[in-house]
């Protein structure tokens, strides 16, 4: 069975693994023990102790925080219950004018702000830009991902999660 060391996974995740080695990993059979090594790498990267249950973004994790499961930024800021849309608890910058769009698109044709805006969802604590939506004005904010966390741990990983005491 294919397997890689935690150090290799850490370099792969951080984008520092040399390309020929990355390319070999891409072409090889996948390593079935990846998930828990990956989580261990990320756990060492964050500065807090709550166990990571599932990464859901580049710096965004579902973790066990006491009796709760919450979506957390890498800086430690909690966006609340993981079943709710974390974006609703974020800070936002909306680019809906030519001037603000031009800051990101300095030399191309721009979208029409009457037809489309850019929404940047930001951690209110550390300022990390977690997600960008381009949408028509008035389009509801999308809830990107609702993982079947219990099903994943139970049926695919064979390690059922402790039942949650609190409802969501």
């Amino acid at each position, binding site marked *: 069975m294919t397997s890689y060391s935690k150090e290799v996974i850490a370099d*792969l995740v951080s984008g520092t693994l040399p390309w020929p080695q990355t390319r070999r990993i891409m072409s090889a059979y996948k390593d079935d023990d990846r998930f828990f090594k990956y989580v261990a790498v990320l756990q060492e990267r964050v500065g807090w102790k709550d166990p990571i249950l599932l990464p859901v973004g580049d710096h965004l994790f579902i973790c066990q925080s006491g009796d709760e499961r919450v979506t957390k930024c890498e800086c430690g800021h909690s966006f609340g219950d993981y079943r709710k849309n974390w974006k609703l608890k974020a800070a936002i910058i909306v680019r809906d004018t030519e001037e603000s769009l031009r800051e990101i698109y300095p030399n191309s044709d721009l979208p029409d702000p009457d037809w489309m805006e*850019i929404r940047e969802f930001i951690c209110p604590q550390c300022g990390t830009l977690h997600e960008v939506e381009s949408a028509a004005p008035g389009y509801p904010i999308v809830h990107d991902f609702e993982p079947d966390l219990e099903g994943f741990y139970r049926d695919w990983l064979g390690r059922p999660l402790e039942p949650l005491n609190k409802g969501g």
Partner: protein
Amino acid sequence: MLDKPASALRIRERLLESERLMEETGCYDGITELKLRNQDPLKFETLHTKLRAYCVSAREMARRISASPGVREVGEMVVAIYTSEGDAIALSNGIMVHVHTMSRFIKWMIRNGYEENPQIRDGDIFANNDAFIGTVQVPDVMDVVPIFHSGKLVGWAGAVCHELEAGGITPGGDVALAQERFTEGLFVCAEKVGENNELRRDYVIRCERNLRMPIYWVLDEKAKVASCIDMRESVKALIDEIGLDYWMQVSKEFIEEGRRAQLARTRQLTVPGIYRGHTFYGHVTKGKPGYQPLGDPDWLYNIPIEMEITTDGKIVMDFEGTQPWGYHSMNCTPAGMDGGMFVTLTQHMNFEGLVNDGAWMATELKLPHGTWTNPDNEMVATATSWALLLPAYGVFQRLLSRSFIARGFVEEAFVGQVNSPMIEMGGTSQYGTPFGMAHFECAAAGSGALAIKDGLDTAYVGWNPESDMGNIEIWEQNMPMLYIGRSIVPNSGGAGKYRGGCSFLSTWLVSKTDHLRLVTSEHSSRVFDNGGLCGGYPAPTCQKHRAVRHSNIFELAENGAPLAHHTGTNPYRSELEVRLEGEHVTMEGPYITAPHKTGDVFTHSYNGGGGYGDVLERDPVKTAWDVENGFLTKEAAEGIFGIVLDEDEEGFPVANLDATKRHRAEMRAKRLARAKPVSEWIAKERERVKTSDFAPEVKKMYARAIKLSARFARDFSTFWDVDAKSTLGVE
């Protein structure tokens, strides 16, 4: 007529039986156990590898028969081998979207009584380019031949080429001006076009008399037939070797194994749950010549996708909430939607091992009736389906990628494909003859970023993973335009920790013709039709066209003065305007105008891909390299990415790491100061929503989505705490 079907049943009854068995057992053709694989796995794998080799070899041979630079240079072709019921067993590389659309074509003939009339016999050749039977668009012409062994139908060999000219209302194949089926070009609707291994002369004459450039289509037909015959004979020889009974069983086990492999791959690479995303597409044609007043000249489409991955490993994609079909060329049939799903799966999940229709069977598409994904009117045009298909499956790639990131397979995460606008042309060639063609350098756009590296520059499109722009010299042989520039477009990839791949722009001089019609398609106006991921920005994809009529370029050349080779980086004054005199044209939306003449200059730009991750985390050293090589401008590096660049003694950019750190800290602080809580923004926006204070096209988009989809209406109402119907004035 079939003398002796492979089973005791006729092929139509066999197809129905196969579908019933799948329904009852959940396994392809009722194969609940892979007996032959278990008996001798090595023989099993070797046989499948042989079949794949037959396909790859037949396609390469056919590419050398074709006269079309689309097929020869760019590889716009795929071939596959099917079971007698029409399910794909093995396929070549190339435009794999058509492996499943061809399956639909074969099944359509079987269901519609082709055994009786026009009969299915050894040596017959059937062709189709009708998307409601099984293809994506008119230029995708497919040919299949039955494979008989011992007097029985035992399979099919099929091939598809994308034709460069389809005889529609505008030249080329992706006929932008088609608003109904009747203007898309020459249709071949599941016809028997050849017998005894030879194309019928009357069919060839029909092609010759209804196409602007029949040499492409006709020679492609010969290339396809040659590849089909090649595969057919190889399969027959294989059956001689392994025996007919073994073939009939093993061909089906291959597909069942493909289905199981897809489910296992999903369980291995992803995380179960619900994933959501969306993109948009804008179309602007008001006042343009040729458009009949059938639908709205300007419109906006939303393309929301909800993807569910079940704990069984099944992927279900639901397009509920999207827009109705329209009088334009961008509608898609379920066959095209299937094809889009198939080509995406083959790139992202089935990159090794068995790939065939089994993978498609482990997925499900929910295509709401009456929408552009599943029109309830078979008269609609689908000539430029890719305009909406590519953005839609770009969303699919981002949804899949989020699951790869969650699972830890970051090296597979990919921000997705973008539309790569097409330019097509016709009129009088540089040889003085009538001509028409699609220019296929669009097959080399920039890709979305990966979660561990930048996207591919000028080397990717979703429909053909073997992306190639073709050689300039070959294109110049086929059109009355000469390249005066083919340049990377700086900042054309979406910004992010990893940027999207950059696109390129071509600049041409119209040469040796007094009648050149240029038409473009598949570019979104006024809205981005792609997206970023995990903080990355979309790539700039709302592009206008620029041309100069009656330019003074020959005079400049004679005087040795500088020419314009690209549009430059000033969005308010292009290099064409700086360098060339003449009538300057800037056009939004499809480029449909009066014919061009010798001395005119035209530019056409392709698209880059979306970015990944927070821009303020981009590697400064890599960025210096980007600036040095023209992928980013120095201003963008500093203004967007927060990277301060100095110059070394030779003038090359060098990252100033300390200054970058300080500058980024300032940018982050400014970002935080500028941002406000989402709850505050929602409260303010709600007032706008309540009064429906939107552009007419936006308002209409909401009204249509609300009317077609109870779920969209409910979600809109819940999110904004309004009554969607009364707010948007929906009856």
